[in-house]
């Protein structure tokens, strides 16, 4: 509450233009230059903030049309396999399986998480000519934000759920996010086909994908 700072008028007292003027001037000068020292603690609640003033949550579920990766889909796989990644399709390296854009990111801290289920076919873990202990199969996972790696992990080695998350400081802008997978490279001894139909065997899949990002500007 604003208090009289010059002279409080009282009943029976005389008022001159100057006495009012001084008070008004005092009030006006303080009101036109409010700063944090004059604002009470915890005076601002959520209803008094403009949207996205402090932070913004980005959420995508399902991530992709069905929550599945649809970049590498071999429809010739056996019916008891996922119609998904086979080594006949996979060229190796990191492959983008889902994207989104963090619209109007104001710059500052970003937490991003990617959840879902992944499957990898582990049968070819010990090819004969590898002459080593084995080649465990993984669906490696990483999130790119504005082209830079936010988080990267070894990923699932069987049929299981995953959640990868990371935090970083990013610049202002509409930030592109990419989810990428990378399979263990194939060897020429690997099991690639079912014997009775010669159908290509599913080596991996990612599904039930969801994305959540929280940008915090200050």
């Amino acid at each position: 509450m604003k208090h009289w700072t010059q002279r409080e008028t009282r009943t029976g007292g005389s008022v001159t233009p100057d006495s009012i003027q001084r008070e008004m001037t005092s009030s006006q000068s303080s009101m036109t230059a409010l700063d944090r020292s004059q604002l009470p603690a915890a005076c601002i609640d959520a209803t008094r903030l403009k949207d996205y003033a402090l932070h913004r949550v980005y959420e995508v579920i399902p991530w992709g049309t069905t929550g599945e990766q649809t970049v590498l889909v071999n429809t010739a796989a056996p019916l008891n396999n996922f119609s998904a990644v086979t080594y006949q399709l996979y060229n190796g390296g990191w492959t983008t399986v889902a994207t989104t854009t963090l619209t109007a990111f104001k710059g500052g801290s970003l937490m991003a998480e990617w959840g879902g289920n992944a499957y990898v076919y582990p049968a070819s873990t010990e090819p004969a000519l590898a002459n080593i202990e084995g080649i465990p199969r993984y669906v490696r996972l990483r999130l790119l934000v504005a082209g830079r790696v936010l988080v990267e992990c070894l990923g699932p080695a069987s049929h299981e759920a995953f959640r990868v998350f990371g935090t970083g400081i990013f610049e202002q802008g509409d930030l592109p996010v990419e989810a990428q997978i990378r399979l263990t490279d194939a060897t020429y001894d690997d099991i690639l086909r079912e014997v009775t139909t010669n159908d290509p065997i599913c080596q991996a899949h990612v599904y039930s994908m969801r994305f959540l990002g929280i940008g915090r500007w200050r």
Partner: protein
Amino acid sequence: MSRINRARIVDGDETTAASLNDRFDDFSQANAVDQFNLRDAAVDLPQLGTGFQAPFMQSDNLGKSDLLHDAPVSFAAQTSTPYTTPHVLHSGSISNPTFATYSGGLTVTTSDVMRIYWSLSVKAVVRNEPYRQGMQFNAIKGSVSDFNVSTSAGCFVAWLQWDITSASLTHFEEVPGQGDFKTAVGSFYGNSLQSCQATTVIPLWSVYMRNINEGNVNTSTEEATAAGWRGISGTWHHKPGTNRTIYGLRVVLLGVMHPRRASAGTVNTLVHDIVPGTNVDLNYTGGQLVTFVNRVK
């Protein structure tokens, strides 16, 4: 406009009630304090109340607290299809289910996103090579004879159900984006993967073949390992289209599941494969379910 923009009072002016009121009205106008009056960075953390980002957080225990796994909860895979009821996590007695409840109901508004994180300690118990039963394998060319090599895709599924009806908690149903695994897929029952948005897959075994030679397997070199004790977890988030009140949230389980398509060209699904069911149990102990409500803006 909030700037006080009125000419000064000077000697000789007549002071009237109207002129005073006009001047004080300048100070009391709606939205009087706005960007014209605030210095840059005038608002900072001390001026903010609480609850901007996460106005609600709650943690609930799931399952049975048993750090040493001395006496875990154990249940058998369902063997009827479509199944009757999924397994509801409990503390060792079916009469004592464990789930999250929200006193008076938790209202999630259109300005919020509900975030769920849960965890559980689990172990698969397998007998009689279930990984080569039902639809759990691919036939692979053998160096001596062909061999059924497990896909290692056999799994249990855990998913979320909520009660948005009343605090009596008698009407649990699948959360949005999640199916109940009772949709017909050819001669089986399950969910399209699109309807698995709140599903966590629990691995049961991993099978590989040693000395694979140009894609041919040696039938004597199968290495099969049941999934031992491990921590599994699930995540889910939901931004309601209209305000939603939730009274309870729980995790339920079903197995044995396997990938399947009804026919060539149809969508990927997870279906209930009951053939290996009598040979598979799932043990579990404890975990937690954490509920966040986040403001989205």
